């Protein structure tokens, strides 16, 4: 079967996701591989939860926070590029630029005194930190739409909402999706650290492993977290490709 070029990365990412899901489910496989890598270790597998459970925790953390990020970040970027929000454009951009220089650990750290420990404070921190690339790319994508195209659309009698949704958003889709991809991948990484503030997820075996000096746990968590990030990146790259209008493909 010959796939059209724009479907290839999508299918590859999907296959990768399936494979990842299968691997995550094979608890015995983890046990035997880690066991053979660390023959001296009595307990080579993290005991508190299975890899599948940890992955689900991780996904829940990232899913909720990234979901909120998209729900808030994309509309925010759309709003500040409309006339009604234009006055806030520079303030939002300043905040976003400034925020992007923040170390992720510092964002978690600054959140904790205010919100305390656990899943929800971590969700809030990830949600806020994930906003920066999404907002900045939404603004950049919408502003990159050629003025003349919008002018032509107005001249043909489209109203603002229609121009936004049928002209500007499709043309900005690729750049916005690139921001979403960056945001989600960063979120997966920061969520790993968030295990340290009690948010659970794949950071747990890494942190736990270091504190009890069991490198097998560390490797287990690290491998799963790295695979998760790479697979998510691939999926989002596929989505980016799919959402790019054909007329814009190189």
């Amino acid at each position, binding site marked *: 079967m010959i796939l059209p070029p724009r479907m290839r990365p999508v299918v590859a990412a999907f296959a990768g996701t399936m494979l990842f899901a299968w691997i995550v489910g094979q608890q015995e496989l983890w046990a035997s591989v880690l066991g053979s890598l660390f023959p001296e270790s009595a307990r080579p597998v993290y005991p508190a939860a299975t890899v599948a459970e940890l992955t689900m925790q991780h996904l829940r953390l990232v899913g909720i926070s990234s979901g909120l990020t998209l729900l808030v970040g994309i509309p925010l970027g759309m709003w500040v590029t409309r006339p009604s929000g234009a006055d806030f454009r520079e303030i939002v951009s300043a905040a976003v630029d400034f925020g992007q220089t923040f*170390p992720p650990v*510092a964002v978690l750290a600054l959140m904790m005194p205010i919100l305390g420990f656990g899943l929800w404070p971590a969700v809030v921190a990830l949600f806020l930190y994930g906003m920066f690339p999404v907002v900045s790319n939404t603004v950049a994508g919408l502003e990159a739409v050629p003025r003349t195209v919008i002018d032509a659309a107005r001249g043909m009698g489209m109203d603002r909402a229609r121009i936004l949704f049928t002209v500007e958003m499709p043309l900005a889709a690729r750049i916005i999706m690139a921001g979403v991809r960056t945001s989600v991948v960063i979120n997966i990484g920061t969520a790993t650290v968030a295990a340290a503030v009690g948010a659970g997820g794949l950071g747990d075996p*890494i942190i736990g492993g270091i504190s009890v000096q069991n490198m097998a746990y560390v490797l287990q968590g*690290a491998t799963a977290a790295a695979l998760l990030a790479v697979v998510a990146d691939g999926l989002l790259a596929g989505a980016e490709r799919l959402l790019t209008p054909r007329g814009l493909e190189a």
Partner: protein
Amino acid sequence: MVALAGCLLLPFVEFRPNRIVSGTFETVFVAGVASWALVALIALALVVALAPGRVRGSLLLVAGAGMGLALLWALGVAAVHLQEGAPAIVRVSVGPGAWLVGLGALIVWFAGTRATASVLVRRIAGVAVLLGVAAIAMWGGLGELSLAREYAVQSRRFWTLVRQHLVLAGTGVGFGVLIGIPLGVAASRNRVVRDAGLGIASVIQTIPSMAMLGLLIAPLAALGLTAIGTTPAVIALTLYALLPIMRNTFVGLAGVDAAVIDAGRGMGMGRLQLLLRVEAPLALPLVIEGVRAAAVLVIGIAAVTAFIGAGGLGILVFQGWGQQADDLTLLGAIPMVVLAVLADVSMRGLRRLVVSPGIEEGTLT
């Protein structure tokens, strides 16, 4: 902005019987006159932000600077006031309201610098803020805040950790430059290097930093090295620094106009001369931009390497989390942000300094 107004109602400072226990919250109004100044400035910022005008930028600068200074002043007043006659173990720490005001002040300030065209105005405002901060610091009220007390306790260790953090990040970026720039040059000359190099580097970039530290266990063990300590940390940091530097070097070189290269060749330059005299100066702005991105990134990741005992400010953050001691966490986190921002600002400055005036700013990303 609305949030900024709302934050006045949130607890401003926390009054705690000692370092660890949580205590009672007080609103901003414990600070008397200072609090009213703060409220007035927030109102000013709101009005200015909502009502565009010709001097809007300058007014935003004044409002942002004023908010920041008034905040520090109000915190100091509150700390002194609450601790009058109390035992030394009592702590007054910064509450969520104050944090939000501080954040708001920064946002307003940055918006102001963007909206102000005049460099002179920005310089004056910058100096004014520094003087203001110095004055408030000398007055000493801030020293009564719990964060400052924490610092007083930890000061020697604090500076060691700052130094460690800088050394870690600096080494990572240094190796990143040493490896990334030649790889970037090679990528611009050779397709295989380009596809493989950039491909691998971007996969590395997606891997969570903590996972990377864990994954290094196996290869390091094979080399007979332990996965704990400075060596794996520096390796990880270098790996992360690689992509931005390599990619920007490549993009910068690939973006050099073919006609310019042709002209250089026409004048009899060899390949190396061409690279050093023509291509390098033209690609430099992007390369520096790559180093800037790498520096900001690596300062952030260096915080995570504290996990594997590499030291740095992450230690304070993680210990703070472990002991539920917020002040300790903040003592690590705030300088981390400051370092990242300083790296960002100084690299931007450097870029402006070294870039040939013939290359317009507009071509930079």
